[in-house]
């Protein structure tokens, strides 16, 4: 018989975190790209012509790719992710619900991350553009 969550806090809280993998990665990406870009621009590190900043743009794209890759991994391997986080085997009766929620959320988060990274491709990193 598998472990029940009645005796394991890690399983209770871990399951909730498992669902939220996608959004958590999105939050991480936003923190990284906004923090890096605004600090680099505030201190005028690496600013080029017309407010461009290769360093900032590069950081934004790099961080985005990293976070998106992790989200894709979770999307593809829900079972492994679940075990990693909760330390327990996947609960069979709710598993379809949990994985589908996790996957759709990860998908939406991937989209949000893509949107956020898009600006760095199209716009100079430090210009006010006003």
């Amino acid at each position, binding site marked *: 018989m598998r472990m029940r969550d009645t005796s394991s806090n890690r399983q209770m809280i871990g399951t909730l975190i498992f669902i939220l993998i996608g959004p958590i990665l999105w939050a991480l990406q936003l923190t990284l790209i906004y923090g890096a870009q605004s600090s680099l621009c505030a201190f005028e590190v690496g600013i080029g012509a017309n407010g461009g900043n290769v360093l900032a743009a590069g950081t934004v794209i790099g961080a985005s790719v990293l976070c998106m890759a992790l989200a894709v991994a979770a999307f593809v391997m829900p079972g492994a992710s679940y075990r990693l986080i909760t330390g327990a085997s996947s609960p069979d009766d709710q598993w379809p619900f949990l994985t589908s929620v996790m996957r759709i959320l990860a998908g939406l988060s991937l989209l949000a991350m893509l949107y956020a990274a*898009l600006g760095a491709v199209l716009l100079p990193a430090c210009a006010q553009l006003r």
Partner: protein
Amino acid sequence: MTAPVLRSLAGTLCLLALAGCAGEQSAFFPRGAEAERIETLFWVMTIAGSVIFIGVVVATGVAMLGGQRVRRVLAGERFIAGAGIAFPVAALSILLVAGFLVMRAGAAGEDAEGGLRIAVSGERWWWRVTYLGEDGTQIESANELHLPVGEPVTLELTTADVIHSFWAPQLAGKLDMIPGRINRLTLTATEPGVSRGQCAEYCGGAHAFMSFQVVAQPPEDFADWMANEAADAPAPQGESEARGAELFRQAGCGACHTVRGAGANGRIGPDLTHVGSRRSLAAATLPNDAEAFARWITDNQHIKPENQMPPYTIFDEAELEDLSNYLESLK
């Protein structure tokens, strides 16, 4: 582009709804490059949004009233995935990229080096406008902005006190004026004419009366205007004006106001050197005539409550008339 068509549509709509639409402060009648781009974007979004909205209403109607077969189509997760995920993703992606591209278009003006620079400082509750010459000269004026048509002009926006926001809807979107920062806004007027702007960030007290006018002129007219603005104030002509000038000096007006060439060099209130030539008084609150000057001097706290000028009720009628005549003569 469909912009002209849309604009006439906007005009009709405005006329319909606004009955005698002044439009001087309306984003529906753009007269600047940035405002024009935004207006186009607005109509694209509005039309697309209307279509989507009608779609939702129709879908709801069908879900409520439609026949069994249609309703069954709407009743599945597949419908949700299509209408609620796939379609929005497509529409929003296009819109987002379009928004980015409009933003990038703003870079064109910003890159223009060596254009006219004007420092605009928000004060409670008026605008200090300083034309910055390339040679370091500074010509100060207030509550009115003159622009040469067709040339990108850089505004350096600052504030003397709280946060204000510079907004001339016919020319461009707004940009805030924040303590400790200089925000730069590039404007390009596309046609001559007068438009109106207003502070868009609530700044306490008389926020509602913090307006200004923008006069876009052909470059040669602008140069003429600039030459006059740079000159000292004209000397008073006639007895009444001379008495007014003396009253101005005696009553201490110069402690707050500057009249170049007349010994008044206060930096607290608006520069009055050429106040008579402006289109309005008190940050576009009153018309510019002798009567309005007189009203303003005595009753400014009722016309524009909490403004920083003390009420001057110490003058009798004759004195007030002299003083107003003098001020009006400062062309």
